């Protein structure tokens, strides 16, 4: 293979085959993929969970992960929080002409490792190369199929009195990427990027009455919780003091003018469960690596219909809104 990806690698000809055979097949090896059909033929189940997501992160490599790991974990998590057991992923690359082959290989390797760790197979895919200046290194789209094991999870199942639980510290991914982008404090903070299907299984198999699971990615914890209650007769009341935030994340947010509650997470779960099963959920979460810092951060109530209200650490209270636009670093 050449040192850089040229337009030829997207031609559909020999070089495309070389990219697939030399890099992608060895990395993602499995029988469904190796058949090299136009699509993969898979063993099935009665009900499927199907999800897709595109990944355009900048920078491509950041402390704690890279675009490849993100592309696998992100889709695995979307399937898992729907109550599915993720099985198969597709993977489509849009590569910019001139992209270093070595970097692509690192991304592919990272995807392979993430897929293995999550117990999923990448069974079909596509590669395209666009002219230099028309992409940002590499974009990845993944779609995921899972077998539905735990049906019925939905924000509509929320009941007054339910506990709102987060699986760990909030805002790690968003701040790590923002800092990596700015070139500041690199290595200090790490993205929490991780597959959460193990954590979901642990919670859902505990027998607890779980109403809903969600991974609070873009828009952060605040936006996801707003989505849970918007338009409903219920509210969520949070206690700021109980929300776990790393000191480094707090400091970075302070410096950049961000709010950890609105920063993306890529390895955290929000779970709403029946009050009496709160202990079961916490135990199940804390028994896993991803859930060791799990905490109850609030309650479902009927006091402020449709709203998320937070009691601040200082003693005041305010309404949380969904994120509006992207968070921008501030002036001073």
């Amino acid at each position, binding site marked *: 293979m050449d040192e850089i990806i040229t337009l030829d690698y997207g031609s559909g000809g020999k070089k495309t085959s070389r990219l697939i055979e030399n890099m992608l097949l060895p990395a993602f090896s499995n029988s469904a993929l190796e058949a090299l059909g136009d699509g993969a033929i898979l063993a099935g189940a009665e009900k499927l969970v199907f999800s897709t997501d595109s990944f355009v992160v900048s920078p491509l490599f950041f402390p704690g992960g890279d675009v490849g790991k993100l592309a696998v974990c992100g889709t695995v998590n979307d399937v898992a929080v729907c109550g599915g057991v993720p099985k198969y992923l597709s993977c489509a690359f849009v590569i910019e002409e001139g992209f270093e082959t070595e970097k692509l290989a690192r991304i592919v390797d990272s995807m392979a490792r993430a897929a293995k760790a999550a117990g999923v197979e990448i069974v079909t895919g596509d590669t395209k190369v666009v002219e230099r200046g028309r992409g940002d290194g590499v974009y990845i789209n993944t779609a995921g199929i899972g077998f539905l094991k735990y049906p019925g999870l939905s924000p509509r199942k929320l009941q007054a009195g339910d506990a709102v639980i987060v699986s760990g510290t909030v805002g790690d991914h968003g701040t790590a990427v923002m800092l990596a982008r*700015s070139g*500041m404090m690199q290595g200090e903070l790490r993205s929490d990027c991780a597959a959460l299907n193990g954590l979901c299984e642990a919670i859902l198999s505990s027998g607890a009455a779980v109403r809903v699971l969600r991974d609070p990615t873009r828009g952060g914890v605040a936006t996801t919780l707003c989505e849970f209650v918007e338009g409903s007769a219920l509210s969520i009341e949070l206690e700021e003091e109980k929300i776990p935030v790393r000191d480094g994340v707090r400091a970075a947010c302070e410096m*950049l*003018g961000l*709010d950890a509650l609105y920063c993306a997470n890529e390895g955290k779960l929000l779970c709403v469960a029946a009050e009496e099963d709160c202990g079961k959920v916490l135990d199940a979460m804390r028994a896993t690596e991803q859930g060791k810092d799990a905490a109850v951060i609030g309650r479902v109530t009927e006091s*402020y219909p449709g709203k998320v*209200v937070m*009691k*601040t*650490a*200082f*003693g*005041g*209270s*305010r*309404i949380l*809104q969904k994120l*509006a*636009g992207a*968070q*921008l*670093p*501030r*002036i*001073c």
Partner: protein
Amino acid sequence: MSFDAQRVLDAIRALELGEIRLMEVCGTHTMAIAKSGLRTMLPENVKLLSGPGCPVCVTPGEVIDAVLELAMRPGLIITTYGDMVRVPGSTPGDNLARRRALGARVEVVYSPVDAVTIAQENPDREIVFLGVGFETTAPGTAAAVLTAKEKGVKNFSLFSMLKTVEPALRALIASEGFNVQGFLCPGHVATIIGEEGFEFLPRDYALPAVISGFEPEDILSSVYLLCRQLAEGKSLVQNEYRRAVAPQGNPLARAMMEKCFEARRDLWRGLGAIEQSGLALRDELAEYDAEKKFGVTYKAAAKTTACRCGEVITGRLSPAQCPLFGKRCTPEDPVGPCMVSSEGACAAHYKYRAV
């Protein structure tokens, strides 16, 4: 918690005061007050208002229009703090983010000196840094200009929208209908201009002034100090933010500003033109002055919206009283700069709405 907010609140309640209106003149205070929910804790007779303390919010539409026009010139890169990217000019929806989508090059930087680095990396481009802010950002901006000069970087220039606090406060106090009994003074600005920079408030206007830090504990303590001065009929400058603010400020930073800038008449949104309130590059640094370099001109903007940012930042209107607030004007689709800036009064009220 060693700080007992309830005790301070009780102490405020115990003071004999009628209705008092206190103004903060710093965007970071605006945000901290809204974020901590402080307004929901204070007794009803103590009102906190947001003054002209958000640099983005006080930049008038016609200046933003000129920036947007400049951004479209070929071969030019606009470098800016993130806040400025979504500020609309006189046409709602038209901002640097939109211009970027239309082909303008706009880079967000964290420090003005980064803009000089971008200039060095792109010798065939003209790099313009949008200098926004008060005495807090002016020294850093001066440092960038001096760095460019020292390194012989000719393709860097500064579009100065820098302003100083004192002339604006004087204009505000002199304006019709001014009804504020004390100022919560900006801690960051005070690190540069010192306690002495606010002495004019008690001396010339008999107004109490307290320089405050940015934690909610700082702000509540400062509110108490202001209330106590008012209850005792005093007016003086008190420094609650001693851990950062020296009585004489930072003379080194001021010397750097002095070296680069001279005061000029400047336009403020909501306050109009104020003599000696803006900072322009000195003549000997004219080659780094983007306005001169690119022959920037300003067109009087036709007022096309019902946006009342001007009244909001002078404390005449609370954000929710603006007819556009939360309806036509939201952070996703802002009409006025108070809604777009992360430090704007409207954005703070919208994002951190009180229960």
